[in-house]
């Protein structure tokens, strides 16, 4: 309260006391009483108007500070839409969603291959084609001196799972659209089993031979094909990992199905075995422990590689729109807020910008105080 207000209030108090005394005396002329009352009314009007003006000035003083506070609150609460990241980890399984049609291969696999889930087998070797037609085979196992996964063709929207076991790597393809196509090449002495009930076929391919396994009907792309699995079984004493690159996953999950005790069935659990997640936006480096949950959505990978040995080694750099870590029951988003992002990446601009905003706010406050004093 200003001295000006104090004087007005003191004056009003004096007049009120005088009016009360003069009324109590009982002999005061009516004109004098009316004069006192009129003065009190005038003072009330001035005091009320002064109070309203003060209220407005206080409000005007507060709003720039409130605005700065609000902006800071929003910037500290709202996460950035995309977060750049770099990820290196070990896992026993990974699931990738592939938004675009994808071609994987050619890959020299140096392993025995088993493919399940196809509906058509094509090859230049008529014995294989006949065997597949006779057995109505949906599976084939191939052992050959040289093996190559010539191509694994996945339609847009397919999901690819990669699982590593001690003795094999399995690729699982789930797609809502057809066809899913696996093309193999083999060379040398080969043993093939076309269909599960058939006898093994011994073949010799001094030059290469190809096999094309088609799941689903290419003429009916909307008809979902069955689950296709490719198992690449390591040979005794050999552990040459399969290198998978050039994939563009949009979503990553690290889950595996673990068998429970007898009668309990199976349950999904984290397949993570450990790793490091670096977030350049905040300068954070997070250690991921075995069993932690990690989910990445809206990925735009610049580099993505899987070395499918035992375990899988995964390297990823790019950006994601969703990044969540789960430890036990506790789940949190790892995306930084705008404030963290700006403070990390635009520190100089942030300092100058903050200084300018604060200077403006203080200048406003000083001006209001000056008006208030005058």
């Amino acid at each position, binding site marked *: 309260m200003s001295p000006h207000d104090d004087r007005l209030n003191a004056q009003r108090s004096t007049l009120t006391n005088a009016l009360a005394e003069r009324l109590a005396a009982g002999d005061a002329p009516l004109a004098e009483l009316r004069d006192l009352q009129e003065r009190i009314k005038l003072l009330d009007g001035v005091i009320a108007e002064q109070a309203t003006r003060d209220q407005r000035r206080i409000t005007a003083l507060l709003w720039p500070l409130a605005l700065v506070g609000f902006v800071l609150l929003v910037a500290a609460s709202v996460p950035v839409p995309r977060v750049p990241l770099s990820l290196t980890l070990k896992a026993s399984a990974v699931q990738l969603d592939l938004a675009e*049609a994808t*071609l994987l291969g*050619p890959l*020299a696999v140096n392993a025995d291959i088993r493919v399940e889930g196809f509906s058509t087998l*094509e*090859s*230049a*070797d*008529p014995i294989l*084609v006949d065997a597949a037609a006779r057995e109505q085979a949906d599976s084939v196992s191939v052992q050959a001196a*040289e093996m*190559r996964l*010539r*191509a694994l*063709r996945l*339609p847009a929207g397919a999901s690819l799972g990669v699982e590593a076991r001690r003795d094999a790597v399995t690729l699982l393809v789930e797609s809502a659209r057809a*066809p899913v*196509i696996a*093309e193999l*090449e083999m*060379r040398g002495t080969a043993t093939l089993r076309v269909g599960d009930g058939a006898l093994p076929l011994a073949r010799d391919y*001094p*030059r*290469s031979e*190809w096999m*094309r396994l088609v799941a689903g009907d*290419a003429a009916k792309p909307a008809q979902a094909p069955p689950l296709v699995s490719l198992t690449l079984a390591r040979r005794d004493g050999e552990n040459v990992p399969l290198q998978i690159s050039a994939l563009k996953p949009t979503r990553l999950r690290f889950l595996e199905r673990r068998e429970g005790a007898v009668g309990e069935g199976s349950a999904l659990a984290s397949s993570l075995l450990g790793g490091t997640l670096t977030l350049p936006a905040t300068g954070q480096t997070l250690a991921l422990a075995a069993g932690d949950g990690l989910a990445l959505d809206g990925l735009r990978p610049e580099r993505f590689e899987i070395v499918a040995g035992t375990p899988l080694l995964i390297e990823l750099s790019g950006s994601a729109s969703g990044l969540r870590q789960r430890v036990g029951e506790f789940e949190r988003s790892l995306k930084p807020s705008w404030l963290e992002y700006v403070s990390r990446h635009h520190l100089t601009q942030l300092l100058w910008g903050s200084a300018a905003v604060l200077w403006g706010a203080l200048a406003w406050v000083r001006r209001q105080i000056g008006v208030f004093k005058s």
Partner: protein
Amino acid sequence: MQLRLDSKSAARLLVQPQRSGPFYRVDAVLPAGQALAWDAAPMLAATGLRLVDLGFLGIVHVAASSGEPALLAPVVLGAAGSERGVATAVVRVSVAVSSVAWRSYRLGTGGGLASDWVTLPASQLFAWQRVAVTIPLPVDGRGLLVDVQAVGADDGQALPLLRFAIDGARNVAP
């Protein structure tokens, strides 16, 4: 010079020298059943190339996402009514190889009935060297699938098969 396709489909015509230089390239659309007149003399005079240095490729469609091999159409030089004889495919290897072999089978058979592998003579090649594969075309005008296989000179491992299809004017769609 008249260029025409031995195919009932239109194709993209690609003309390139079969040598590393000078770089020259022609892209054109070659309609089915129509001849394209092309005067190569100015280009040959300007580049110093000979007509035999040029390769002519008709691309009906490139390898699709379904994995079907690229469908190529032989380009016939000269007047209409020439005998259908052989197609010459020029293959260039990207690594040193110890041998190159090829085989063919009828288009539309879904594989099977492949010819025996024919190993090309003098096919031990340096990286980026070319070799010509002379492929007899079926006299009935049908198409062919061709597999070309090469064995790496360094490790003796087979390289991925090169597979392509040759269209024919009386080809039956697979």
